[in-house]
Every structure is written in structure tokens, then in C-alpha cells.
């Protein structure tokens, strides 16, 4: 493998515009050299921003790094560029499964099956998913799929957990770190855990009751118009508050490493999803 990587690196150095970065990035990923793989994929993407395979590669590396939110964006982009990209469709299915949205997961796998009806890994993933087992993470099409036994069993998630996750399906940490409450501090969706893993959902919701009205009053008094959001930097983590509807409040909590600007973008997406979900209720 090391020889392969050396040979591929040399090829890429000779012709930086070539698509060999796809094979090199994948080889590094498989070897667990994720930082190297990431650099190769990003450089490739800079040169080939409209290449679906490049977004697919980048998404697979991000998935290995457990950065599911960005992986989702990359696979989503790959499908926009190439709607029949089975790697990206399988990737999206995997992420939907992870947040408990089985319907979306199956829909994406079915789409992939229509494109490649002879691909046994797709049937295998659908069967595993129906049995409640996490389908394997999507691999490059040329590579053999891992055996079913290698897949980790899915954590048991209650049906109510799935409903809550569906509010934010597709977003990083859809089951944790996102909380939607009504004006009285009642939880509508999402969940929060503190650093020790204890469930703090209800406590945080209670403290946040009335924040929306107070923020609105403050902005009005200052003549600033309607409030859009509130970002806060904590000693151990950052939070963002937004209001999908005048009464509801959305809280996004992430580790301190996530910059406030990026947190605001994530919150904006979650707000749109929460608004849609609230409108359907």
C-alpha cells in the first residue's frame, strides 16, 4: 500500500491537474491517514470543483472523521452535480440512517438501486437497514464492500427518538446538541447532554423559556428591529439561539472548536428544518 501511495503521489506531482488524486485520497483514507487524505481531496476539489467523485471522496473522508454535517453537504453537492452518483446516494442513505430517518435512508438506497440494479451491496444495505443494523459506510464503487458481519449494530433508538431526530434530519448531531422549545419552555424536539453525558434537556429548556421575548424586547428598545439570532461563546462550548417562529426557540450547542460563524450557519439550516417541521404539525 505504501508503494501505491508513493507511486500515486509521484503521478500527481507530475501532473497536478490529473484525476489521480481520487485514487491517492482513497488509498490514504483506507490506510487511516485521514489528514493526508483530506489535504489531497481538498486540493483536488480546488482544481475540480464540479467533479462529483471529488465531493464523494471528500465526504467519505469527513465521515471517517465523524464530521457528518460537512459529509452530508458534500454528498448533497455530489448528487446535485451528478444525480445518479450511487456512492453519494449511498452516503446520504447512511447519514439519514444515522439520524434515524429510515424513510429517507431507504429512498436514497432505492434510488441507488435503480441506477445500479446489479450492485449487491445496495440490496445488502437495504436488508441490513430493515433489520435495524447500520449499513456499512459507503465505499468507493470499485472497492469490495465490507461483509455484513463487519457492520456495527445500530444503537437502540426508541421510536420517539426517531421523531425528534427527524426535525433535524441530515444535520450533524441531530440527536444531540440541538433543542427546539416552545415559548413556555416545553421541549418540541432534539436533546442535550452535558459533558458528563447526563441528559440536561429539560433543565436547559426551562432556563431558556422567555428568552425569545426578552431578546425581542431588547432589540425593539434599541430600535434594532426584529432579532435574528444570539450567539454565545462559553468556556467549554459555543451556543446559538434562533427563533424558527415567533414563539419557538432553537438552541444549537457545539464544542468550543466550532467558530461562532460556522455555528450560525448550522443554526440557520436547523432553523429552516425546524420551521418546516413546525408548519407540518
Amino acid at each position: 500500500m505504501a508503494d501505491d501511495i508513493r507511486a500515486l503521489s509521484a503521478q500527481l506531482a507530475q501532473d497536478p491537474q490529473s484525476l489521480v488524486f481520487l485514487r491517492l485520497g482513497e488509498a490514504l483514507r483506507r490506510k487511516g491517514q485521514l489528514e493526508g487524505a483530506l489535504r489531497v481531496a481538498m486540493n483536488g476539489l480546488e482544481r475540480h470543483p464540479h467533479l462529483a467523485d471529488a465531493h464523494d471522496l471528500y465526504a467519505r473522508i469527513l465521515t471517517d472523521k465523524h464530521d457528518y454535517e460537512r459529509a452530508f453537504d458534500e454528498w448533497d453537492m455530489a448528487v446535485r452535480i451528478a444525480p445518479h452518483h450511487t456512492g453519494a446516494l449511498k452516503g446520504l442513505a447512511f447519514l439519514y440512517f444515522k439520524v434515524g430517518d429510515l424513510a429517507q435512508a431507504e429512498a436514497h438506497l432505492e434510488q441507488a438501486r435503480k441506477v445500479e440494479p446489479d450492485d449487491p451491496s445496495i440490496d445488502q444495505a437495504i436488508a441490513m437497514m430493515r433489520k435495524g443494523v447500520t449499513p456499512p459506510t459507503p465505499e468507493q464503487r470499485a472497492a469490495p464492500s465490507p461483509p455484513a458481519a463487519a457492520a456495527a449494530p445500530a444503537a437502540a433508538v426508541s421510536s420517539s427518538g426517531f421523531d425528534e431526530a427527524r426535525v433535524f434530519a441530515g444535520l450533524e448531531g441531530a440527536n444531540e446538541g440541538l433543542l427546539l422549545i416552545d415559548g413556555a419552555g416545553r421541549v418540541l424536539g432534539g436533546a442535550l447532554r452535558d459533558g458528563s453525558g447526563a441528559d440536561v434537556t429539560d433543565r436547559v429548556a426551562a432556563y431558556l423559556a422567555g428568552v425569545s421575548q426578552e431578546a425581542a424586547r431588547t432589540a425593539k428598545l434599541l430600535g434594532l428591529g426584529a432579532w435574528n439570532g444570539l450567539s454565545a461563546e462559553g468556556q467549554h462550548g459555543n451556543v446559538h439561539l434562533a427563533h424558527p417562529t415567533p414563539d419557538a426557540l432553537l438552541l444549537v450547542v457545539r464544542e468550543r472548536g466550532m467558530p461562532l460563524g460556522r455555528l450560525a450557519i448550522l443554526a440557520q439550516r436547523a432553523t429552516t428544518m425546524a420551521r418546516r417541521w413546525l408548519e407540518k404539525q
Partner: protein
Amino acid sequence: MSKALDLITRVRGVRGAMLVSAEDGLIVAEQLMEGIKGGAVAALAASLAGRLRRAMEAAGTGTSVFWHLQAEQGALLVVPGGDAADGILVVAVAEPDVNIGLVRLELLRAAETVV
């Protein structure tokens, strides 16, 4: 104190700055443009800071070191200084296109000076 507020209000787009007692929401010092109702804003900022502090502590993120309320036509930026519950809040009111990063730095600097 007024020197600390000077540095904040010197940032382009800042309409005013205040030092507010986190415990009772009273103004300790202020440099505000005309038309800003300092007393009311101080009271609401302190109340908002209190709720946020409790919620963030419960969520495991620790007390806030900086927060920022974004609105259509401007922003309120706050750095809690000293003990979060009864310390001083360094507050700035700004235009929507203000350099948030710069104001944040001046607020943090002011908080170090006044506490």
C-alpha cells in the same frame, strides 16, 4: 472606566457602550449616542445575560465569555466580566455592518481593565 468605554466606542459602527451591573441591571458607566434608552437596555441585557448564563452552565458549556444578539438593524454585544453572577457586563450597541471581531476584542480588553 471611561477610557475603556472610549476604546469600544472608537470602533467604527459602535453607537454606544456601557458598563452594567450583572446583579441588578443598573448602569455603572455609559457612553451612548442620543436616543438609546440606556437604563432599559441595561436592565434587559442583565436579565438576558442571567438566563443565558444559567442555560449555558446547565448545558455544560461553562459561563459565557462573549455573547452577541443580532437584529435586523444592529447588534448588542456583551462580555461578562468578573464573577458571572454579580460582576460587570461590558455592553456595546452597534450598527449591523460593524466588525464584530474587533468589537469583541475591545470588549474583552475593557472587561480586563474594569474588573
